[in-house]
């Protein structure tokens, strides 16, 4: 029982990281795709909207990692060994993005250094979600080779191939469109709002493109993605909800109810995550030799799982109200400030 609670927490942390951390990275991705002249406005909007909660947004990743290394140590150590290189690149992205974000907002002097911070911030906002996508895709792509005898097949070829790369790019576009939809609701002027909506559209288009690439590469590499996503009832329902949410997102945007559209965008991501994670549950790592790591069989001993579950439940009693209050109160204060402008 407790094991399922822990797994639920893990799943939610991943989802929330994808949504909140994703929107956070997305702001940097949008900046990268914005013309130099328009960047200053975007930077200000993003800072105002994300500043107070950005630290909290990234806590979901830490929670997820802690759950994995305490509760599912076999998964943690296997993935750490075989995906050492993409994990390291992702860590570099996390370091660069977190520090550059802070430096550019807190450096007391405004001079040419800021151009450097901005650069680093934008590129690392792109790299980090890209590699998160690559890592997640590799885990389920059945290419991790625990019996490899040479370096490339043990540590590189498992992740460096088309399927993970296209999942990575898809993740990037997802983050970008989440950010655009989120930020469109944060700006007062309709000009600015439409700029974000145009960005959201572009990101959606690109995401579709990479989705096609993703299916093609999956079928070329023998990954049963199609069967996973459409071969069972739960995934099918989730797919339908995802498609409907996408439609609703755009409907709401054109009804000028941008804040409502956020809800549907979130629902879409959630359904997508259900659709991909359900079919191979409880296996979360698939190996080349046909083996797999099931999170039910490879969980820590029950004493640990019980303690972890209690810690998570107790923690959420403190965290959730505080987090909701944080988001709510700054959202409220922001609208007050907007009226002053």
């Amino acid at each position, binding site marked *: 029982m407790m094991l399922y609670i822990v797994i639920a927490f893990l799943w939610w942390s991943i989802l929330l990281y994808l949504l909140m951390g994703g929107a956070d990275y997305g702001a940097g991705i949008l900046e990268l795709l914005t013309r130099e002249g328009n960047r200053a406005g975007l930077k200000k909007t993003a800072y105002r909207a994300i500043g107070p909660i950005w630290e909290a947004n990234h806590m979901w990743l830490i929670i997820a990692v802690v759950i994995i*290394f*305490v509760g599912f140590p076999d998964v*943690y150590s296997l993935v750490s060994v075989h995906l050492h290189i993409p994990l390291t690149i992702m860590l570099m992205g996390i370091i660069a993005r977190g*520090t550059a974000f802070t430096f550019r907002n807190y450096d007391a002097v405004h001079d040419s250094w800021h151009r450097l911070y901005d650069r680093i911030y934008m590129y690392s906002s792109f790299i980090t979600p890209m590699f998160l996508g690559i890592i997640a895709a590799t885990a389920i792509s059945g290419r991790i080779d625990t019996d490899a005898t040479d370096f490339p097949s043990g540590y590189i070829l498992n992740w460096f191939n088309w399927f993970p790369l296209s999942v990575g790019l898809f993740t990037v576009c997802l983050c970008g469109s989440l950010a655009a939809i989120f930020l469109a609701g944060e700006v007062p002027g309709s000009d600015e709002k439409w700029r974000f909506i145009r960005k959201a559209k572009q990101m959606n288009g690109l995401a579709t493109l990479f989705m096609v690439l993703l299916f093609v590469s999956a079928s070329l590499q023998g990954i049963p993605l199609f069967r996973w996503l459409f071969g069972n009832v739960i995934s099918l329902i989730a797919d339908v909800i995802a498609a409907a949410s996408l439609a609703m997102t755009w409907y709401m945007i054109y009804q000028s109810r941008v804040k409502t559209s956020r809800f549907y965008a979130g629902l879409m991501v959630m359904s997508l995550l259900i659709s991909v994670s359900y079919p191979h549950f409880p296996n979360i790592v698939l190996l080349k030799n046909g083996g797999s790591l099931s999170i039910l069989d490879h969980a820590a001993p029950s004493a640990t799982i019980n303690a972890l579950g209690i810690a998570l439940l107790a923690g959420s009693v403190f965290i959730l109200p505080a987090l909701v209050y944080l988001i709510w109160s700054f959202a409220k*204060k922001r609208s007050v400030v907007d009226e002053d402008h």
Partner: protein
Amino acid sequence: MDDFLAARSQMALSLGFHIIFSCIGMVMPFFMAVSHYLWLRTGNENYKNVTKAWSKGVAIFFATGAVSGTVLSFELGLLWPTFMKHAGPIFGMPFSLEGTAFFIEAIALGFYLYGWDKFNRWFHWLTGVMVGITGIASGILVVAANSWMNSPSGFDFVNGQYLNIDPMKAMFNQGWFSQALHMCIAAFAATGFAVAGIHALMMLRKQNVGFHKASFKISAVFAIVAAFLQPLSGDISAKFVAKSQPAKLAAMEAHFKTDTHVPLIIGGIPDTKKQEVNYAIKLPGVLSWMITGDPAKPVTGLDRILVKDQPPVAVTHYAFQIMVGLGMMMMAIGAIGLAAFFKWRQWLHQPWFLKLFIAATPAGFIAVEAGWTVTEVGRQPWIINGVMRTADAVTPMPGIQYSFYLFTAVYVTLSIVVVFLLKRQIQMVPVIYDKPQLNPAL
């Protein structure tokens, strides 16, 4: 460089980097809260400026601390997968509680940094205090995880299997209290002296004296109190080490032969081949007395430890000497500081007094790094004391040295940038906070 050495060096580098930021993240919120409180109570603008200036510094340090911590939580697996595979479920309890502490800390920091003039003044102040409390809590928890590596408990090790796991017992292992206490005090001492030193420098340069004097007083008081407590808690730690890790204690003291009336060795150059220490000051019987309470009682030396289980003596010994030496020095400076605060207040403006504190700026952090070297190198060759060898825990992936070079480059660059930003922050004080000095006598 072989992979094993590279992995150890990378771990040491990452932790040595992170610990600086975590000390500051634990302690600065308290300095801010005091200064913020004084502002709310007295209305003195200097305190408001100090609080705001510090909070900007804290934002920079916090972000760097958070990313370096995130990196660590992956690095444990990237470098020591075998260790984590077995240890994760046992010593994971503090980490899972720490997650909550971090989260609340990040939320409270969001309120504090972005909440100026937006919330009730005392609610805003309280969120600052919360940042400090949760920071200390996460420090205590993570040190409890480390002390488990030194004094493992909460499981039975039978035929290479880890059975009967009890995460609570593992968290409250025998070492957690002495180590967490010593670490928390160390954080206050290190951060206190560093901050006091920087503001003393600005006072010496006669820049915004009111501002820097307010900052100096707050940080120096914390530093002095911590400097007096530190040796006391160090003594508790040493007694614990003697009981649980005799090999570490012997290496710290370069104590080769088990004997009674063992002298306390100060300084000196250990010669591991001849098993003696040259050029040292030896206080007869003092080590026996400190550890056992009786100068005539024996203390285990390295001769009772199998050679393959002995930690590197020289590094551990030097690091211990550095930590204790700096601790004594900080206490002496603390005594002079006390005299200045309570009796000879004119000293506070005299260059020699300020120079003393300027000289002590890095002392606490050097002691912290040295102390961790004692703890970690002194535990070698074990990653889990007496249970798992470090060499058996390392990742099978080849080429770790490139990863080490990469991390070194990144951390060196980051350190430079952080120092550079801090300098700019301080340079900007006259520009941003150029208010008339309401109360220069403060």
